[in-house]
């Protein structure tokens, strides 16, 4: 007999979108509702397909900001599932740990919440016993590995592990409840339902060790369509199907500007690329456009106005398009070659700048970046940032010198 369940994590309900600037006011609500929208899509899918159960692996809320409305929506979702008699297994993650002082909404009977200890919950599906293991974060940070607390699977029944954490040694995210793939495999579970990492990925197939990713991307680093997995375990083998849920998608499009001479050409190319994207994905999108293949003519064209102006022109063109598509960023993959005279002027400046150390960089930028008032809103600059700034500096200087040339 097969067991079918839905695996989702990192709902981060009612969290704002980050890094979106100058978004039109009238569309803000759409943006704001998108996490709910995605969650609603998820619940709807569950109600329609009636899975045997559902696992939610942490970070339902955003912790720092957990709105009552978010909790109410979640409660409503759970109640809808209760009505449909769909059991839910739920573990809280670092963002919605158990120690939080926030008001807790009562969840219906069908929801089984894991406590801070790793425990086993059982459910019988058409005669098959399903063992589900998991724990909730007792507090904000769980730095130590929790993997040892998971028992090794028994011979009978299906075993599913719920774990909100990251792989040991992966520094790209804050490290929580670190684990190794091997350690997980050693438990001989049929499916490892992971949470915490927002990028959809499988660390291992067969048995699958899976991050379903979040339901809704919330900044440009969470690109592409997001959703959840519908998992079927049949004869001890788990297969999964991705189900998209996002109502708005972040994406990056590269646009070749080869041969672009006039603003009209450029707008047409951009519009075509964006329209093409819309036609293909049928979803509201926030896109970053990267201009590539910029030749002399195109460079000259782009120099005619600053980036903000190009962006606003483009936004205006795309304003009336449906589904809604918002161009959030415009970047140029510039070749920094120019004539000797300008080069000879620029070189000493660049030479100077390239010799700067991180401290020097920080010194240079301290007025804003170390300003007591702005510190709370700015993240500490990394080397990547410095490089990006340097690139920008080069572009600025070249533009300025060409103008004065």
């Amino acid at each position, binding site marked *: 007999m097969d067991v079918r369940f839905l695996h989702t994590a990192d709902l981060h309900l009612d969290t*704002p*979108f*980050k890094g979106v*600037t100058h978004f039109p006011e009238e569309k803000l609500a759409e943006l704001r509702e998108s996490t709910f929208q995605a969650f609603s899509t998820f619940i709807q899918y569950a109600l329609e397909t009636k899975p045997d159960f559902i696992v939610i692996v942490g970070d339902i809320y955003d912790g720092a900001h957990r709105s009552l*409305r978010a909790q109410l929506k979640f409660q409503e979702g759970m109640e809808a599932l209760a009505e449909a008699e769909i059991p839910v297994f739920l573990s809280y993650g670092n963002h919605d740990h158990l120690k939080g002082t926030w008001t807790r909404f009562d969840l219906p009977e069908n929801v089984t919440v894991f406590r801070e200890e790793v425990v086993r919950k059982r459910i019988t599906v058409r005669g098959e016993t399903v063992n589900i293991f998991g724990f909730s974060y007792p507090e904000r940070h769980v730095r130590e590995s929790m993997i040892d607390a998971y028992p090794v699977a028994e011979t009978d029944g299906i075993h599913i592990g719920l774990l909100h954490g990251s792989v040991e040694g992966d520094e790209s995210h804050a490290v929580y409840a670190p684990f190794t793939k091997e350690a997980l495999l050693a438990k001989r579970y049929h499916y490892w339902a992971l949470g915490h990492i927002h990028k959809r990925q499988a660390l291992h197939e067969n048995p699958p060790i899976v991050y379903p990713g979040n339901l809704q991307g919330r900044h440009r680093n969470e690109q592409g369509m997001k959703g959840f997995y519908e998992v079927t375990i049949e004869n001890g083998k788990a297969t999964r199907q991705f189900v998209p849920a996002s109502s708005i998608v972040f994406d990056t499009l590269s646009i070749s500007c080869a041969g672009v001479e006039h603003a009209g050409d450029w707008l047409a190319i951009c519009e075509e690329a964006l329209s093409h994207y819309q036609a293909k994905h049928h979803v509201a999108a926030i896109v970053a456009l990267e201009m590539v293949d910029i030749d002399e003519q195109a460079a000259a064209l782009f120099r005619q106005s600053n980036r903000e102006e190009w962006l606003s022109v483009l936004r205006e063109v795309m304003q009336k398009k449906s589904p809604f598509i918002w161009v959030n960023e415009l970047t140029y993959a510039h070749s920094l070659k120019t004539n000797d*005279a300008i080069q000879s002027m620029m070189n000493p400046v660049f030479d100077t700048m390239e010799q700067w150390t991180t401290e020097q960089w920080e010194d240079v*930028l301290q007025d804003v970046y170390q300003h007591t008032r*702005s510190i709370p809103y700015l993240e500490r600059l990394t080397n990547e940032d410095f490089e990006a700034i340097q690139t920008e500096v080069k572009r600025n*200087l070249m533009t300025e010198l060409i103008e*004065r040339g």
Partner: protein
Amino acid sequence: MKIEKLVIYGFGKHDNLIIELDPGINVLYGHNESGKTTIQQFILHVLFGFPSRNSTRLRYEPKSGGRYGGQIHLHDPVYGKCIVERVRGKSAGDVKVYFENGEVGEQEALNKLLRQYDRASFESIFSFSLLQLQGFEKMNEQELSRTLLASGTTGVDHLLQVEASMEKEMDGLFKKSGRNPELNKKLTELRKLEDALQEEVRKSDQYAPAVERLKEVEGQLGTIHLEKEAYEKNLRTLAIERQQLPLQQKRAVLQERLITLADTHFPADGIQRYESIVRQLDEVQATTVRIQEEVKQVEHLLDERADQEKLLTLEQFIERESEWHRSLSALASLKMDREQLIEQENQLRVRLGIQMDEEGTELLTADVSIRKEEELYELLESLKDFHREIDIIERKQAELQEEIARMEERKQYVTKPSEKDMQQAEQWPKIRQQLAEAKAYVMIHDQQENNFKTILFSLLAFMLLIAGYGILSKQYGILFIAVLGAFAAFVWSKRQKTNEQVKKAKQLLTHYEGQESEMEAVFERVRLYDEEKENHEERHGNIEMDSRNLATSAREIEEKIHQTEWSLQSFLAQYGIDGLPSATIIPELFRMIRALQEVMRQLGHTEERYQQLSIDIQQKHEEVEQALQQAVPKEALYEWVRKEYKIMTTKARQQQTAIEKKQQLEKELKEKEALTTLLQEQIERLFKETAVETEEAYYHAHQIEQEKLRIDRQLEELAAQLIGQPAIDLSLTDEQFENMMEEIKESMATLNQQQKVLVEEKAILLNQTNALLSDEASSQLQQQFEMARAQFIALAKKWAAKKALASAIQQMMNDLKEKKFPAVLKEAERLFNRLTNGRYDAMIMTEEGYFEVVSKSGMRFPIIELSQATKEQAYISLRLALAASIVETAPFPIMMDDPFVHFDEQRLSHMSHIIDGFTTHQFIYFTCQESMKNNWHEATTIKVSTIRNNQGANV
């Protein structure tokens, strides 16, 4: 880089000129206006381009309009031998660079050759005049540094501009304590949003306590609800009991009452029957009254019958209607006749020229009978006859005149007798006659005397008679007259007595007696003559007589005419005609007068008839008005009559109908009276049955009957209501019940109050929690915050890029200053020391960024305080030091336009020594002082004014 040769095609005053230069020091000497500066400008123009036409710089285009530009042959340490050629072309000229290896380049190649130096950068170090040197003193360090350091990095100005621009843009983005720059604004916005978010969080923190309180309130409400229910039940029981109390009491009362009511009899349906009869009776009586009323009306109608007479009168009037109309039309025609007659009268009057008032009467009464007409005709006829007679007489007169004329003619032929004869003859007859007369007279006288005496006596007698009468009647007048008369008669009688005449006659008779025959002969002759003459005269006299007679006749006839005319006049005067009109129109006048009289008469007649008729009509009109008893316009008289007649006849008919109706009504009336009697009998019977006399009693009996029935019914109802009810203590009063209930109600009111408060609180709490649950403001704020933050980050990045660029440029400049400037300064110091022969041994930069020099004694002088020449020397030192420092990157020749004029010999000498030692650079020195060339030992001297002579032009 050394310039080897200048080939000028055409530039300013120079054309076709070749100047060879030494790689070392070249002194170009020439007087004013010999073209030194032109050569210097040639070099700069060819290397850096002709100035644009609207530039302040001179272009030095040849005035002759020939070739413009030229070549510079030079040797560069990197590029070897090159030729830079610039000729007329685009504004800056067309430039070509010919390299040693045969390559030909354009501007790009030239830029490389010139190490990207532009003219300004070049001039700031390598080419200067006295004037440019002097400009230095106004510079501060930064500017000076900038100028000096421009040497090291081409386009430093641009970089500095970029830096300034970045600084400016940064200012627009961020200021440490600013408000308006974008980042500051964003920060404020973020802070505000954050505050708002905090507020939202604070609000949502109220959720849990609110929910807690909600539960409490709900519990309390539950308790209150239960309590209220208990009270309500109690209240209901009490209410039922209280309700029963009066019922039971009432039953007792009713039962008592029933007993007191006597056993009376009342016929079944008595009231209905009675009332039915009474209703019928009322109806009958009403009908009777109505009929009587109608009878009265009819009678009233019949009262108006009296006017039969009037009707008859009207009928008569109507019969006479045509007569009336005839009268009216007759009146109208009479009126017309009258008008015509008046018109005629007027015409006639006008023709007769008489006035209405004055002459009218006279004229109208005048006799115009046939007889009068006859009389008129007679007068007229006689007048006509008279006129005819006069005509005849006149004709006869004329004949007589002719006769006379003929007689006068005949008379001339007769002889006249002598005078004496004539006298005698003449006297004779007279005498004879006197004789005859005397004879006759004497005879007559006797007879006459007798006659006279009788008359006289009779007269006297008469007088006496009269006198007697006078005396008798004592009328002395008469007496006097009589006496007078008698006297007169006497006197008269005396005179008659002519006795002398008789005597005379008798004498005469006596004288002429005897002479008679002679006398008779003479006389006969004379008489014949005379006869002849007399005959003639007689005839003449006859004719004259006739003529006189005729004249008399004429006078008489004229008298008659006159009389007749007068008669006629007076005749006409009778008719009011003055004067005598022409005879012919008189009859016409007469006729007209007659016609007028006729008209007048007719008019009178017509008037009379008209008056009569009018009176007649008026009478009739009055009659009608009398008959109609109202004023009626004459025109509509008969309309009114007819109308009235119609009304009268209608009325008559109505009356007829009324009579009939009255009979009918009287019949009905009798029937109704019979019915009334019948009904009254029935009522009597009913009263008898009930044993009452009056209607009031009858009704009273009915009421008693009714009350009995009602009490029975009520008792039945009460019995039904009280079935199954427990007996209650009838001793409790309603008031006591009320008090008990009031207490319960008060308790309930208190509970209600509590409940109301709690319900309100619950509502508020529910509202609050619901609001919090559905509050989107929070997430909206969150999103806004994130967006603002993203914008802030983006702005910060933007700022960072600008800041980094500005910092990099600043740092680079600082590096230049810190590393390069001290070296340059040191070299400058050395040169300055040498130039001033050790008077000043240091050049330093003050804190404020100004140059100062330090004298041997250690005194510090700002450059501006130095003497003119010393100042210039300081700057030259700086420039040379600078040029030396950058010789690697800028190995350009140094061109000087007489900057040493202020130098004394000693310093000039030092200067030339320094330059002599400056072998790294080519020097091109322009001067107007011939002696200057002597300062350099190894200098090549070129006298500008003689170039052409010496070297000629050969391109």
